[in-house]
């Protein structure tokens, strides 16, 4: 069990307030861009509703759509694999590479492979993996996990990236001009694309009707990798299906507007069949998804198209950073998905929210994110993933509040204490007091006042 949890990790993050301000401003700027893009489309809310309903349909008929997709994909010449969990997924990838005696792979960004910890696994097995998404490459060089699903290195300032490039890619010391850094990365990656024989991409949408899949990138790196490689492996979560090709337009209009405020992703690459001499594989991964599908209160979370809008808008994420969620997928949606995989390990995450509801409002597929966070809290406590101290405190609270007499007495004692013995509350043990003053104790409560004045 990971002992460092969200409150501690975000306390560390908050030690550098300047950095928190910068992180918050950067993400808020993206949220503002998203607002502008959304408000530019009068039918925005209808689009969201449509996307949500399409995904509802997918989840209700997932079994059939998967079978349809498999048959169509096979007919197109794609080899279809099924993986029940992360381990199976990783093994399939490795065996495909070993069969062809390949030791180097270029990868486009895929949160599923992060979820499966594929890079570490392949590296342990002698395969050299290069992430070709620029942000992902940067965190790879820094030996860190991504902190955001769309903007993997949003937590890094350009000076820090310059330093990394200086160390790993030979740029001059002290260079932080984004133009120069991007150029350097391009050159470095171009060489990778030309020399690697295998490429792995994620999948944004897979179409049951046609057996094809679509990968969205802003840098075109998925195409570059896939087109030049002898073998293209695509990893997808089973929830990525949409029924028909015509539904794609709904999602493509929503995806980047929600993610970055762009009208559409720069490259939406469609893959339908392998080119001559190439092998194309797709791995359909469950890894907890069917369990979540079976949890009535949480199945909606499988509608997620991974746009990251909920993270950008989340006031907690913006001030705690993606790494504080200690999980591949951070932010509000990560806090719903993670406990499904390991409730004990991620019991802290549904509590890392004020339930303000902003995430639910920006979500392009209308996931009831903040309501699910509330529901997870109930499940987590019921299953015993809480502390004895907290349970005790809550029982005392119930005891006090369930009797008007006890409540009034407790209120009196509380107010008396604040007034006459402030040192008992204004101290280090009281977390409220660390950065905030306590409320003043009035001379009488409302109910006491009412008794005299009614």
């Amino acid at each position, binding site marked *: 069990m990971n002992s460092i949890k*969200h*409150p501690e990790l*975000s*306390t560390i*993050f*908050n030690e550098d*307030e300047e950095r928190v301000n910068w992180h918050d401003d950067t993400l*808020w700027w993206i949220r503002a861009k998203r*607002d502008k893009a*959304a*408000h530019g*489309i*009068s039918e*925005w*809310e209808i689009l969201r509703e449509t996307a949500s309903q399409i995904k509802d349909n997918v989840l209700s008929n997932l079994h059939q759509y998967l079978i349809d997709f498999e048959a169509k994909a096979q007919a197109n010449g794609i080899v279809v694999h099924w993986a029940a969990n992360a381990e199976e997924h990783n093994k399939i990838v490795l065996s495909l590479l070993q069969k062809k005696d390949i030791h180097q792979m270029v990868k486009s960004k895929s949160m599923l492979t992060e979820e499966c910890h594929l890079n570490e696994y392949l590296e342990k097995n002698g395969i050299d993996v290069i992430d070709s998404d620029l942000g992902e490459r940067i965190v790879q060089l820094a030996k860190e996990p991504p902190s955001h699903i769309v903007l993997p290195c949003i937590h890094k300032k350009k000076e820090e990236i310059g330093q990394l490039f200086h160390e790993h890619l030979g740029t001059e010391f002290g260079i932080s001009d984004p133009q120069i850094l991007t150029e350097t990365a391009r050159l470095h990656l171009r060489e990778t694309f030309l020399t690697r024989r295998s490429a792995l991409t994620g999948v944004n949408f897979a179409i049951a009707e046609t057996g094809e899949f679509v990968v969205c990138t802003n840098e075109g790196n998925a195409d570059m990798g896939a087109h030049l490689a002898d073998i293209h492996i695509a990893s997808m979560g089973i929830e990525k299906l949409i029924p028909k090709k015509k539904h794609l337009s709904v999602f493509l209009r929503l995806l980047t507007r929600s993610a970055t405020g762009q009208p559409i992703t720069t490259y939406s690459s469609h893959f339908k069949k392998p080119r001559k001499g190439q092998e194309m594989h797709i791995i359909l991964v469950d890894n907890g998804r069917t369990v979540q599908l079976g949890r009535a209160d949480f199945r909606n979370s499988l509608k997620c198209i991974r746009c990251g809008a909920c993270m950008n*808008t989340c*006031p*907690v994420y913006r*001030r*705690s950073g993606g790494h504080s969620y200690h999980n591949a997928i951070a932010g509000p949606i990560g806090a719903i998905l993670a406990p499904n995989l390991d409730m004990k390990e991620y019991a802290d995450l549904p*509590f*890392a929210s*004020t339930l*303000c*509801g*902003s995430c639910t*409002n*920006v979500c392009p597929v209308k996931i009831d994110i903040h309501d699910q966070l*509330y529901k997870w*809290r*109930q499940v*987590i*406590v*019921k299953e015993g993933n*809480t502390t004895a101290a907290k*349970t005790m405190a*809550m029982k005392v*609270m*119930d005891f006090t*509040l*369930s009797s*008007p007499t006890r*409540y009034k007495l407790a209120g009196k004692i509380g*107010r008396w204490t604040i007034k006459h013995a402030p040192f008992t509350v204004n101290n280090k043990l009281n*977390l*409220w007091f*660390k*950065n*905030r*003053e306590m*409320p003043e104790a*009035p001379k*009488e*409560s*409302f*109910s*006491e*006042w*009412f008794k005299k004045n*009614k």
Partner: protein
Amino acid sequence: MKVGLFVPCYVDQFYPNAAIATLKLLQKLGVDVYYPPNQTCCGQPMANSGYEHLTGNCNRLFIENFSEFDYIVSPSGSCVLHIKDHLHDEKRESDALNVRHKVYELVEFLTDILKVKEINASFPFKVGLHQSCHGQRGLHLSSMSELVDTPFSKPMQLLNQVKGLEIITLTRPDECCGFGGTFCVVEEAVSSKMGKDRVEDHLMNGAEYITAADMSCLMHMEGILKRKNSNVKVLHIAEILNAE
């Protein structure tokens, strides 16, 4: 029309003035208000901490206290939302449902039920309106910046009727203040930072007072203001609507 006044526990204990203003305001508007003396808390602090199963006693008490009224009104969006969404009682489920349907936050009661068009109040100051999340996104007291929607604001509608009051414009119109019930201590670092940032937005834009339809957010921001030794004050919206 018989109205029951629900004064949430922390308002009762720490902010009696907000409750007094609510009572007087309703009386001024000719409402027949009752205050059931045996009330305590809506149970939200337990429920939001994952202990909804311990709220049975609070729920029972709440139903006992408030079943008889035509409306239940409370100066706290957050508590009202909790009652609306989560009040249950196995033995009296239909009563619980009934209570959930007739509970109103003060502002929405004034705008939607009483349809107040004229408030006899004067408050010649620059005021920042904090849109508390549970009131705004939960009870739809105003439109939300994330949605593509026709803008409206019930609290603003009322504040605009107050003589001399000047509403300041915030840089981020509806960001959360970070209170969040037990979140404020469980996630102390993030909560405090959110509170600081929220307060800063009001200060930067020249507020002399910060108001809201939820005292809990105001309590949080007041704690931050006082730690900064700021002379900007917080006031519940009822206190402004009742100011002469």
